[in-house]
């Protein structure tokens, strides 16, 4: 799993690098400063990070042999992950409504593909966790094979950490990005 995560680091790394290189090069709006909603995304970021705590607790109780608590905390992971996905869905719809799609400008392209790929990772994680919650409920996932949950947890924490980076580079660093110098000349 560690090797797979190494591979995934390069995967996200290339997308994030693409985003950073292309930052501030959109020739037409909407620009990040006009569209990003930082308070709302901070809430969803908080939700996602809390799911990592739930993940740790789930693994802890599984190892302690407390089946119901473990199942409950794994379900909390599923729930928080789903809430995060809900936020992302609403955000995407909002942006599309305000005229930002992957085709609009280079910010739209890099934003949607990067966060979309991350969203796909979260979705896979949610499905995986749901499966593990079911296994735990049925008593098939126990302290002696808790490695299964630990590996899934590694993946989950990784996806969270990637989100911290994405949140920083897209939402925090680019928050004030407006049109690049000279862009107004293009549009007369």
């Amino acid at each position, binding site marked *: 799993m560690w090797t797979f995560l*190494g591979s995934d680091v*390069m995967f996200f790394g*290339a997308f994030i690098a693409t985003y950073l*290189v292309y930052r501030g090069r959109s020739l037409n709006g909407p620009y990040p400063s006009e569209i990003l909603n930082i308070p709302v995304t901070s809430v969803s970021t908080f939700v996602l990070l809390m799911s990592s705590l739930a993940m740790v607790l789930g693994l802890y109780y599984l190892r302690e042999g407390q089946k119901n608590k473990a199942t409950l905390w794994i379900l909390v992971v599923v729930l928080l992950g789903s809430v995060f996905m809900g936020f992302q869905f609403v955000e995407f719809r909002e942006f599309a409504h305000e005229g930002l799609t*992957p085709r609009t400008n280079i910010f739209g*392209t890099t934003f*949607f593909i990067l966060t979309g790929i991350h969203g796909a990772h979260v979705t896979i994680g949610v499905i995986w966790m749901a499966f*593990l919650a079911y296994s735990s409920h049925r008593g098939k996932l126990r302290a002696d094979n808790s490695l*299964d949950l630990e590996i899934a947890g590694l993946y989950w924490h990784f996806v969270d950490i990637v989100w911290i980076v994405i949140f920083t580079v897209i939402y925090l660093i680019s928050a004030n990005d407006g049109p690049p110098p000279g862009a107004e000349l293009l549009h007369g």
Partner: protein
Amino acid sequence: MTTTSLTFPRLFPRPKGYAGIWSWIGTVDHKRIGTLYGVTAFIWFLVGGIEALLMRIQLAKAENTFVDPETFNQLFTMHGTTMVFLVIMPLSAAFFNWLIPLQIGARDVAFPRLNAMSFWVFLAGSLIINASWITGNAPNGGWFGYAPYSGVTFNPGMGMTYWIVGLNILGVASIAAGLNFIVTILNMRAPGMSMFKMPVFTWMTLVTSILLVLAMPILAVAGIQLQTDRVYGTNFFNSLGGGDPVMWQHIFWLFGHPEVYILILPAMGIVSEVLPTFSRKPLFGYPFVVFAGVVIGFMGWFVWSHHMFTVGLGPAANSAFAISTMLIGVPTGIKIFNWIGTMWRGNIRLNTAMLFSISFVAMFTIGGLSGVMHAAPTADAQQQDTYFVVAHFHYVLVGGSLLGIFSGIYYWWPKFTGWYLNEKLGIANWALMFIGFNLQFAPLHWVGLDGMPRRIYTYAENMGWEGTNLAASIGGFILGFGVLVFMVNVLVSRMQRKVAPADPWDGRTLEWATSSPPPPHDFDEIPQVEYRDDFWFKKYPETIAEYYGHGDDDPAVPSGAQLDEAVDEESVPVISGGAYGAEATESEHGHGKIHLPDQSYYPFILSIGLAIFGIAFLTDGLVLFAGAPFFIWGLLGWSMEPVNDPEPETP
């Protein structure tokens, strides 16, 4: 996430036994998967070779009209893509699969079913790329698919979509295989085999696997970005939307240059095994060869922009990349001197495998030197996109990788099959390939420096390039004839069936300690390792003092106690039926006693699903729903399938 007692209903019984097509589809045996890789890659090698020969016919004379320009574009694109992704990489993978568990004294790789999946996914990807010939839409944008030529504006056909989808599927296979070999090498070595007692081929496999795992995702990113540009109208490489085509070059070559080392390091590993065996000496400067390989793997990440000297990145970037590119010649040079040092005063046996390995060293040196030439940006400005570059990378890929792989084929063939390849035909094979190769590619240096551009389907009569091009074309056919001789050799040798013993070459590493071909469980008894080249020193304990007697700082030097023990009669293995038990048959030590993973068809099912996903991108999104059942069936079945079915009660 296997939960051992959840069960998933089976539609087919789990394949058992070792015969019939189902046993191959369900196989998880690393040796059989290696064979599948090898055979498939060889078929693609013939396809790629025919593509090359068609191009050489076209270029044999000026203003030729044998193929039209569009077909020529497709030929060079598919030739490059095929040879890189469908030939050299999987042929290396065939050796990884066959040899790594044998060399480290393991019974299989760490994740046998994942290994099977790698192969089936590779097969799916390779079929999708080549299906483009049948549908008449072969990719035509070069193997590096430069945007914007590969974008939908300038390249509206389906060809580049085939290329992207195929490569992304192949990427899945490569990453899975890379993960598998990293974990296998790190965790499954025989007791006593520390990292610095591993054979060099194993070391190079480890470095290659790390490169695969880190480089292939970058290719996936490039592919996804290009695909969304083409299909959904995003702006990654579209300058009107704020994107930049140079970005493609950066991302592609950030993958592409480590890829170069993915192609050459396995061949370096093979040569590092063949040369010591046939020189009857240990590899000269083992730690240097290993570290040089690791350094190459590391520095390979810092040289990608030397493919882009003429883009106009500015003097600072060009100088930095020129320096790093020239520096990477240092570890490569170290290896070359170590190989020569290995042969120096050795008791050399010149057979086919050895001839291929020596030619590897010579040809790779030439290719390396021309590489250092265009590491200088000023020189590169003249050489960029000419046949000089073509000559350079064919000297390292054909003269390097391919000759190394052929050396490996001749060297390990008796181990793989239990019979020798014919030496006379082998030497004819080597001579034809060596002469043909040099006749084909050496003249291209000259026309290249003279300015003949690559990727152009023809040239004018008055350029003075006709003689050299004709020579190159003749050389190409001699090279092709050499490959034909190889196939004849396999058939003839199969009929002659000169049986090989377990250790036909007086080998040094653990794969020679088991029978030829090895039993399904590889080793009856997992070997205990004390030395580097352990098998050799246990055969010839009297040589231990000679090589290790006065080198106390050497990591492989056994302690005094170990030395005594090794010379002890009890622990010296006898080749047949001894501690390594080469002659034991399957019936004596069958599956009942040795734990082997059972066969599984789920990796195959999963790959079908993935292949249909790929087809969906080529046809219609709705096809995704056709692939999903296979994918989910494969995934769920796999994750809930126990590695071993409970043993049935024997009456």
